[in-house]
């Protein structure tokens, strides 16, 4: 976390969870970065990441994905994992982040 901030990169987490659930997660895990709530999968749909019916009671949720966006708003790196247990490591993201101006 501190390493991301040092490199000038702001992590932002997005899921269908309500702000209340996200706040509890942040408190438990000690997260200080923004956690945003997209219950109606509007943004998740705009990024084509809807995993239809995969949530509780057939609720639509996001498939895991990471995007590194530079200060001009351009996508610089994308990770669309093929297995939701497997995520990008912080080291890999920092490696890409070092290339940002």
């Amino acid at each position, binding site marked *: 976390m501190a390493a991301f901030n040092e490199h*000038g990169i702001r992590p932002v987490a997005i899921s269908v969870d309500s702000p209340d659930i996200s706040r509890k997660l942040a408190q438990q895990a000690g997260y200080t970065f923004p956690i*945003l709530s997209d219950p109606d999968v*509007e943004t998740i749909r705009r990024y084509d990441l809807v995993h239809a019916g995969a949530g509780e009671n057939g609720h639509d949720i996001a498939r895991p994905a990471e995007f590194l966006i530079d200060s001009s708003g351009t996508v*610089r790196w994308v990770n669309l994992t093929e297995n939701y247990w497997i995520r990008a490591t*912080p080291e890999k993201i920092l490696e890409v982040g070092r290339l940002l101006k």
Partner: protein
Amino acid sequence: MTLRRLNWPLWAGFLLTIVSVITFFSFLVWIPSTRNFPWVTLLMFGAAAVLLFLGVRRAFAAEQAKPRRAKIGAVILTSVCAFFIAAFVFSFFVAARWLPASTNAPQVGQKAPEFTLADTSGKSVSLAQLLSTPVNGNAPKGVLLIFYRGYW
């Protein structure tokens, strides 16, 4: 019951299976190197399988006149463990790959779609704000968007 009578490899294998599953979800899942490929958990499963095999062999050994319930118990316990191990391997290596293709997701070089969403205090936050609000007192070099499944 003495150690000679107790079928300890069987029970050790059973305990190790349970402990493997618990340690993965409570601890190892937070470490990228033991989560992205669960080698610690698979090694523990392997050791549990060896113990269970020894336990079953012991229960069925001809020279030890074991009662029938010891044999039935060994088979049931081993089946329960095999179920746990199979369920873990299936969910990790098969079910976790059932994801949408996301062929229209933003690609490298494209503009990231703008959005405005509520943060944990219910305040609206836009991508433009996230890209311009300082990090550590300096203008941010970038924003890392992390989409996740959530806890619903």
